[in-house]
């Protein structure tokens, strides 16, 4: 079984700051991490490798420094890594990104036929959840989104059974291979890399592909040219601050506390009383 896991390197959003003058994101000094959602995809792929045996290839599109994200994936147990990087990709939106990744996956497929493609549910810096489905559509793969667990994979019968989180419950779905899965967060826990894994990651030759190696012929489909999405404005919303208020109550019986609180709420929102009255009637 050959599994491709798509990962992205993103700025650690917990440490990001907006430049006070220019309002742009200050990337300088902000550590880059593997998109946390993608780690659930990678771990699920590695679990399949543990059970069925598989060759796991991790794929990342991004600037040269994104190689670090791929090395991290190798430390956890991925077998091979491809970084597709080219100045021509700069400014790509989800349409152009899914085109570039689909083309790269098709190239990888030529060397070793792919059975499964994993993506995270979405990235933490874009939040679109469009790239995974975009790849599936372009490569004509079966698409399973919001998957919480892969139950079984049968490479003989060429089918897969997964659990998918849906509104109000869990769907158990079966589809045929090859397919693309976007993995839900919180569904598994990334393993702790072994010492051998760390050494392998440090020494592994990551494949660095430019747009030609990725099989892209039409430059109009990538980068800014291939991206109809336009960021027209970026601004930091003004933080809203509401002062906390300490409500004092002379008695500390639950009833008196409740009455004081309700009285306070009703004085602050006079309309509330009428609204509650209407509801009661």
């Amino acid at each position, binding site marked *: 079984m050959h599994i491709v896991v798509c990962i992205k390197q993103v700025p650690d959003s917990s440490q990001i*700051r907006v430049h*006070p*003058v220019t309002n742009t994101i200050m990337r*300088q*000094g902000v*550590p880059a991490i593997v998109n946390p959602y993608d780690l659930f995809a990678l771990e699920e792929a590695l679990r399949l490798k543990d059970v069925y045996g598989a060759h796991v290839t991790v794929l990342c599109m991004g600037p040269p420094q994104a190689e670090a994200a791929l090395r991290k994936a190798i430390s956890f147990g991925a077998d091979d890594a491809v970084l597709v990087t080219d100045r021509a990709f700069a400014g790509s939106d989800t349409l152009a990104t899914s085109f570039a990744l689909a083309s790269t996956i098709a190239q990888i497929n030529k060397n070793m036929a792919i059975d499964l493609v994993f993506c995270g549910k979405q990235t933490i810096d874009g939040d679109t959840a469009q790239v995974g489905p975009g790849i599936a559509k372009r490569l004509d793969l079966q698409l399973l989104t919001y998957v919480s667990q892969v139950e079984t994979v049968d490479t003989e019968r060429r089918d897969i059974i997964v659990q998918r989180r849906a509104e109000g419950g869990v769907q158990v779905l079966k589809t045929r291979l090859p397919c693309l899965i976007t993995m839900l967060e919180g569904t598994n826990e990334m393993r*702790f*890399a*072994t*010492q*051998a*894994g*760390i*050494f392998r990651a*440090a*020494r592994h030759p990551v494949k660095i592909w430019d747009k030609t190696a990725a099989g892209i012929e039409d430059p109009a489909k990538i980068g800014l040219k291939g991206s109809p999405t336009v960021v027209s404005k970026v601004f930091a919303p003004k933080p809203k601050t509401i002062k906390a208020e300490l409500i004092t109550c002379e008695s500390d019986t639950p009833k008196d506390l409740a009455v004081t609180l309700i009285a306070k709420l009703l004085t602050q929102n006079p309309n509330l009383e009428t609204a509650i009255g209407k509801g009661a009637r």
Partner: protein
Amino acid sequence: MREKFDAIVVGAGPAGNAAAYTMASAGMSVLQIERGETPGSKNVQGAILYADALERIIPDFRDEAPLERYLIEQRFWMLSDDAYVGSTYRSEAFNRPPYNRYTIVRAQFDKWFSKKVQEAGGLVICETTVRELMFDGDRVAGVRTDREGGAIYADLVVLADGVNSTLAVKAGFHPELKPKDVALAVKETLFLAPEVIEQRFNLKGEEGVAIEMGGNITQGMVGTGFLYTNRETLTIGVGCLLSDFAQQKIPPYVLLEQMKTHPAIRPLLEGTELKEYVAHLIPEGGYNAIPKLYGNGWMIVGDSAGLVNSVHREGSNLAMTSGRLAGETVIELRAAGKALNTANLALYKRKMDESFVMKDLKKYRRLPDVLHKNPQFFTAYPELLNGAMHQIVSVDGTDKKSKEREVRRSFGQRRGLFGLMGDAFKLWRAFE
């Protein structure tokens, strides 16, 4: 597979990087193990880079290292509660390359330094904690990490694991740090537009200023404060002996907050935005607290060995120099076909003794003790000096002779004649 290297360096700070770079450049197989997510992610300093120490390792570092501003001005302030007396040294000589000192942002600088180690052929692995040293008899034979299959072997282990050096403590190479031998420093990085920094501190281009402070800001504790200009940030911090913090029960962040409201400091920080808050321990035990620097199959460098000159606020240059000398020691011994045992590694100590590192630390060996036992240097004198300046500068109809008498009286009253002479003697001895 059994992993074996010529040398393992534990820690990717200035000392570890200097050692790893020196050894890897000589063609040794070097493994460097760092606990943080990236080299530098856990490292904290003021931070001022002293060019000389790095230049002896990477001569053309100025062309590529991420540097903030080169220092052309140094201010020393002695603060009372609402005043300061100080001195300023600013020179055009500092405005001509090659520059002597720079402000740096360690997270970026350390990443660059580590990249140089990797370019030199060193293998650097992060997010891996060395739990203990592995021994073969009394010889250090390698390290054991927190990861599955974490036994890694080497002919030599360089301990550059920082101020606490839990590895050295665990191995019995030196005792646990005492609270009186270590300072706790807290620091904030504050964003400020470069134009404003330049205007406010009278700078242009990449010029920078460093302000070192003492006095009431440490509220009677043994310690100092600082304010440095980076390209588009200021760093402000204060550090005091851990034993004093414990005794006075002042939380470090409160001390820093109060320092920031001092009338001499507050205007310099106006309009800044907090970017980062960090805290770190600094070894302040000086010469007398330095442990044994080497043994069978191991050497210890940088903060791990307590190599900090607290008088001149130097540490990273001592760290880099010790790392380089440790590296050069190994290279020499290997070239001569000698074993890396205790007797031969004594060469490292000899190199250190000949360098400014040990000479400077030895010069101030009495100081930690003097300051610890004489808090008046941090309480009475700043106030007395500021009071004296106030007398001399203000014009209020009092004749000058009476003013001088008043200044003498204030000093005599606080410290007494013998106290004053004693203090002068102690300081002279400590700085001698």
